[in-house]
């Protein structure tokens, strides 16, 4: 009851001096809006990065690649690229045998682009890739048949996965492609599955207005089959992706990999296997952005102190102006605590309104900058526009903290003046003119 009365009094008092109240709030508004704008930009950058990486496919793999550490003057003199030093399929298979609970492989390679003749004897092109396992890839949804798997490779089967676009190019309309044979330069392959090309792939690979018949489509064959047909079974690798099962300690796995390869390469100081993981890289980037956001926010929050002092100043003025009113209230039976509450509530309300205006302005500013960034990317780098998933996201925790901070500013800077009012001697206050 008393609280509602105090709120009503505070609103009356703030409205009675609108201009003064707004000027008083200005410090709080600027401080809070700066913090909110910075955090909005920070969280938007993080969200954009995560969404962009996620849209590139799953990230639960380590990229491992061969790296030479000879110095420039040694180049070509003391070392020649000895293919035995490079990463081999055997090393990777042994790794998976050693840690089957952590890792699995899904090796892939570019085989090459080949021209093909379709049923109308028109020439089309395909881009052949080899892959161990083409099942369960989220971004290439299967509409028919099955994906290539390890068994196909083990049996050196000549099977193929093609896209719906390829089916349209290659076969007469209405043909069931499953079981049909496609003849290429490296052999004949039976189609066992048809997948849909994801939107981002289409946007990235093909120009607008390009004829469907001219589009080069990706097709997949088993990894081991490809190596066998190309007689490259013993050829070492430059790099490979080592996948890990979800929900594992990435740092631990990274150490495991590093140790595994260091053991193999311990006698070869000039060559090593590097391990790279996008997830841990992204985690580091996020940490850096967080630190920067917090640091700038703290600097911006200093203006809250200035704002708070402004509030304190105005509250002192207000109390001096209303000394007589305080005296009358005390004569009518107001306890010290009632007067204290009245003025603290007024200070809190002043800060809270300032804080809320600040949050609204900050979100508007942050979102505005986000839209400008999005517009600029679309305008000047349209080729990347499809790849960057620009996400604008105001930070909800930052807003909650801002509200709490506004209230605390009100309590902290309102308490001293309010206490001064509460302690006024009623006789002196009544006599005050």
């Amino acid at each position: 009851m008393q609280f509602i009365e105090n709120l009503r009094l505070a609103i009356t008092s703030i409205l009675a001096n609108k201009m003064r109240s707004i000027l008083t709030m200005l410090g709080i508004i600027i401080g809070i809006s700066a913090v909110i704008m910075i955090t909005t930009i920070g969280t938007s950058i993080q969200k954009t990065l995560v969404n962009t990486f996620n849209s590139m496919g799953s990230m639960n793999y380590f990229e491992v690649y061969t790296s030479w550490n000879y110095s420039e003057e040694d180049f070509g003199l003391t070392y020649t690229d000895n293919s035995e030093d490079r990463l081999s399929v055997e090393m990777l298979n042994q790794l998976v045998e050693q840690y089957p609970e952590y890792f699995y492989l899904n090796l892939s390679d570019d085989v090459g682009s080949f021209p093909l003749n379709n049923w109308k004897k028109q020439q089309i092109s395909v881009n052949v890739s080899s892959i161990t396992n083409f099942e369960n890839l989220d971004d290439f949804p299967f509409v028919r048949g099955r994906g290539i798997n390890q068994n196909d490779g083990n049996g050196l089967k000549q099977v193929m996965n093609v896209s719906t676009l390829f089916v349209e190019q290659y076969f007469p309309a209405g043909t069931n492609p499953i079981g049909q044979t496609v003849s290429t330069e490296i052999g004949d392959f039976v189609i066992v599955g048809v997948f849909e090309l994801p939107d981002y792939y289409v946007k990235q690979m093909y120009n607008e207005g390009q004829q469907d018949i001219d589009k080069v489509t990706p097709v997949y064959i088993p990894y081991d089959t490809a190596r066998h047909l190309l007689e490259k079974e013993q050829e070492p690798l430059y790099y490979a992706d080592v996948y890990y099962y979800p929900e594992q300690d990435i740092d631990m796995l990274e150490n495991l990999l590093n140790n595994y390869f260091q053991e193999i390469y311990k006698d070869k100081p000039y060559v090593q296997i590097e391990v790279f993981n996008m997830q841990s890289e992204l985690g580091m980037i996020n940490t850096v952005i967080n630190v920067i956001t917090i640091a700038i926010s703290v600097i911006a929050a200093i203006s809250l102190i200035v704002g708070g002092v402004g509030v304190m100043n105005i509250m002192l003025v207000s109390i001096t102006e209303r000394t007589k009113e305080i005296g009358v209230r005390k004569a009518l039976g107001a306890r010290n605590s009632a007067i204290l509450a009245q003025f603290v509530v007024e200070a809190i309300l002043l800060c809270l309104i300032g804080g809320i205006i600040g949050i609204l302005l900050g979100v508007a500013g942050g979102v505005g900058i986000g839209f400008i960034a999005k517009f600029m990317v679309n305008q000047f780098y349209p080729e990347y526009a499809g790849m960057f998933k620009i996400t604008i996201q105001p930070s909800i925790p930052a807003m909650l903290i801002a509200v709490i901070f506004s209230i605390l500013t009100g309590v902290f800077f309102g308490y001293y003046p309010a206490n001064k009012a509460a302690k006024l001697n009623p006789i002196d206050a009544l006599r005050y003119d």
Partner: protein
Amino acid sequence: MNKPVIQMQNVIKRYYIGQPNELQILNGISLEIHEHEFVSIVGQSGSGKSTLMNIIGALDRPTEGTYHLNGVDVSTLDDDELSYIRNQEIGFVFQTFNLISRTNALKNVEMPMMYAGLSRKKRLERAKELLALVDMSERATHQPNELSGGQKQRVAIARAMANHPSILLADEPTGALDSKTGHKIMDLFHKLHQEEGTTIILITHSSELAEETERMITISDGNIIADTGGENNAVH
């Protein structure tokens, strides 16, 4: 004889105690005021009547002596207890009205009841009743700056009556009004005294106004020098 509301025994008030400019304002006032009395306290400025009023009104404590208000020894109470006494036992009427600005008449009258913790409904009911008593019902929603001096004082009197106080303590209530309006306010006091049985203490420097009351206590240099018209005179 009615029961005593105010009992003062040898009340002394000093300021700047222990300092070279120590000042004694009241030199041992003994006084008894009973229920339903209409008393005036008269004195020149500097006579000590304001100090006496502050003590009667529980705004201040006596330095020495005892002051019982409705049997409660006020001189021993702390600030919050004094606030409670002022809220429940005293109705202040000031020379300059002292209505809270930007707050309408009704809300002004509700204020002492708000500090007493009454519910909104009860407050509103009582405030309307009081405004009717002082003939201000039609101005209930007016802000103080929309009221004349006399009207403000009527609202102030209604406010003073809010919590059924034991005494209505009026400090020069007509001092800021023209004589015609002043008379109307005095008529209102008489009406409250006669019809409601309110105990009224009127503090004034005007002996003309004091003549209108039943009992007149005259103060000079911190002493009661005369006490006339009462049903029983002060204990000297």
